[in-house]
């Protein structure tokens, strides 16, 4: 008989400004989350695959006002519908973690201005095997782009 599955650990948060390594670390420490690689995290040996995605603001963005041509950005301004955005983010995180039997799922998304080259989105997925981790990551990002009320506004150079 398979042992009962531990519930997934889920951390989700909307961050003001870019997701810097320091902000990320402080947030995760604050929520008591540690990477599987640290023996002090989840019981060693359960997690076999850790996937991490970072979304970074690119310099070139298509401008609707310029016939879809790519123009240079300074930054993106992320507008969130609060507190619905954070609640939808958390609810999506829980659903995906549960559905794929993940050990943990961490997601951080920026609100407000994020300059070109800075990180606006982080997703970490930990699971026993690689296939679920990859599937969960793709599905999370697709549904984020459908259901979480966050809009981006280009700040042109």
């Amino acid at each position, binding site marked *: 008989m398979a042992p009962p599955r531990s519930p997934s650990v889920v951390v989700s948060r909307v961050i003001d400004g870019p997701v810097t390594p320091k902000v990320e670390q402080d947030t995760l420490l604050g929520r008591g989350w540690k990477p599987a690689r640290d023996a002090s995290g989840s019981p060693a040996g359960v997690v076999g695959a850790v996937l991490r995605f970072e*979304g970074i603001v690119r310099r070139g963005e298509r401008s*609707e006002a310029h016939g879809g041509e790519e123009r240079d950005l300074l930054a993106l301004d*992320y*507008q969130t*519908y609060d*507190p*619905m*955005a954070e*609640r939808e983010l958390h609810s999506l995180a829980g659903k995906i973690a549960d559905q794929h039997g993940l050990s943990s799922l961490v997601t951080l*998304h920026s609100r407000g201005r994020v300059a070109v080259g800075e990180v606006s*989105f982080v997703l970490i997925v930990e699971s026993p095997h690689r296939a679920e981790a990859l599937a969960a990551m793709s599905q999370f*990002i697709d549904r*984020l*782009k*459908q*259901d*979480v*009320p*966050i*809009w*981006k*506004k280009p700040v042109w150079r």
Partner: protein
Amino acid sequence: MEVEVLLFGAAATRENSGRVTVVVGAEPTVRDVLAALHEQHPDLRFALPSAETGRLAVNQSFARGEHPIRPGDEVALITLVGGG
């Protein structure tokens, strides 16, 4: 009655405002508000090509079709989002 609808993203930019008002009958539903938005605010049609394609949040939760809108509800038009 009148219903105030919050706008975000490109919809807010196009209307140059974070909210618009629509006039609907008594005891309106989500469907009625979407139809009124489409009808009464042609500038929003770039994001709301038909009433059926629209999506509302009522009191910060997605709500559909026959869901009633009551006085005092917070209503928001959730056009194409763009996180990630």
